[in-house]
């Protein structure tokens, strides 16, 4: 049974409870009063990027629209601008809930595969935690070459002027490809993160068991 099916079984007919227990800040969802200020404050929603803007997602969660919520590209359009958070009259930490739903969908393996920000988000975290510090060159290369070598060269060419400008201004170092900046205690960081994931997994599992 896939992780997704297992969770759907476990929380059958109670998607709100599933979100409350499994998603960061999910227990705030029930506080939404459907005023729509979040949707009206979202920079990418102005461009109609959200299939379902935040307040709609909150209602859909309460209505048990599990598949629609977890598989939508909507929350991956969050730019982390925190406008919704500071304007919400009920003080819901909306940005964090959006990140939380996205992370949960990603964890269950049901988030839209080709969504570019989903890809970049994972890439960023792996890049940052591998050595403890971000390698900007490898991060950009990893993004441009995500669809293979040919597509990568084409993407890279589009970015040529930006990259050359940055290199000239000494704000991009081509030699970072050979290593670049790192933390000294990488072993400690890996051990610490491994433990953190273990603890987080067991805390979530305890909720499912309880």
């Amino acid at each position, binding site marked *: 049974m896939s992780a997704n099916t297992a969770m759907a079984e476990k929380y059958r007919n109670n998607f709100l409870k599933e979100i409350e227990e499994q998603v*960061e800040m999910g227990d705030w969802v029930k506080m939404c009063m459907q005023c729509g200020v979040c949707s009206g404050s979202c*920079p*990418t929603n102005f*461009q109609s990027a959200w299939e379902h803007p935040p307040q709609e997602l909150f209602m859909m969660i309460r209505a048990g629209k599990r598949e629609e919520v977890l598989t939508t590209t909507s929350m991956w359009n969050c*730019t*982390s*601008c*925190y*406008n919704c*958070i*500071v*304007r919400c009259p009920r003080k819901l930490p909306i*940005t964090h809930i959006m*990140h939380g739903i*996205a*992370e949960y969908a990603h964890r269950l393996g049901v*988030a839209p595969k080709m969504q*570019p*920000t*989903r*890809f*970049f*988000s*994972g890439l*960023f*975290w792996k890049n*940052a935690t591998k050595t*403890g*510090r*971000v390698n*900007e060159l490898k*991060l*950009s290369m990893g*993004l441009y070459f995500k669809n293979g070598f040919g597509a990568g060269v084409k993407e890279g060419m*589009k970015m040529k002027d*930006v990259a050359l400008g*940055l290199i*000239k*201004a*000494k*704000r*991009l*170092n081509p*030699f970072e490809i050979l290593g*670049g*900046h790192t*933390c*000294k*205690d990488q072993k*400690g*960081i890996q*051990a*610490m*993160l491994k*433990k*953190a*994931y273990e*603890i*987080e997994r067991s*805390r979530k599992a305890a909720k499912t068991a309880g």
Partner: protein
Amino acid sequence: MAKHEYAFYPGCSSQKGASASNYLTSVESMCKTLDVKLTEIPDWNCCGASIGYAEAGELPRHVMNARNFALSEKNLPGQEIVATCAACWLGARETRERLTHSDTLMADTKEALKEAGLTINEMPEIRHMVEVLIEDIGFDEMKKHVKKPLEGVKIAGYVGCQTNRPFGVDGESFENPKYLDNMVEMVGATPIPEYDMKVTCCGGALAFSEPDKAQAQIKDIIESAYDHGAEMIVTPCPLCQANVEIYQGQINQKYGTKFNIPVMYYSQLMVVAYGGSAKEAALNGQLIRARRLEEIAAK
């Protein structure tokens, strides 16, 4: 001994050869003039930024920030942590807030930190460099050091998101923060208080993953600066600076605009006004050169 001492968290983008290395150069010169001593937290790590959310989860993300707290406490006991990057500051402050409010999260964090031989006993204060300037140093003291006022230079103060929300600077509103305009005025330049894109999002990480969406926002930010007669934009955030500066060529191609406006850090304005050289202000770190500032620096 310096007048003000802090544990310094420069962040990934400030490192040598990285996208905000010009920010760090100018901050260092600015701090020298203001007698501020920044001691780098030894072996600091990435804050995880907001965009790491798909794989960061909750605890791993807080543990990353907590490692910096622990290193700071161990090596620079009693000092407040100062970040120059909006994302570093926000990430660290968020972790501080969550750990302070949850004993479970705190206990779990300590357990994970043990694996790296570290612990936290006291929660540090997390400050942004602009908070240090405004609250610890103050406008009067900052102004005292101005030797070459940037007279007649009209500058749009672009505050952006993460230095403004969700925490922001004390006493400022989320919708219309005024400190950046006040800093522009302090260096003798002309602020544009009616600049209506001052807290609009630049698209953040979507500038990488979905450039069309981010560039539509960046276009509005720049257009409004021009409409208000600005000859340059100033910002306190490394990602705002990069996003608003480096994609102007691509935006011009897409929208038929003729954007070519310099985007500076507040610290660069201050270094030039304090009589520093173009090199000390890292003016050579711009893709779109700020000729007016270069002229003033050379005088």
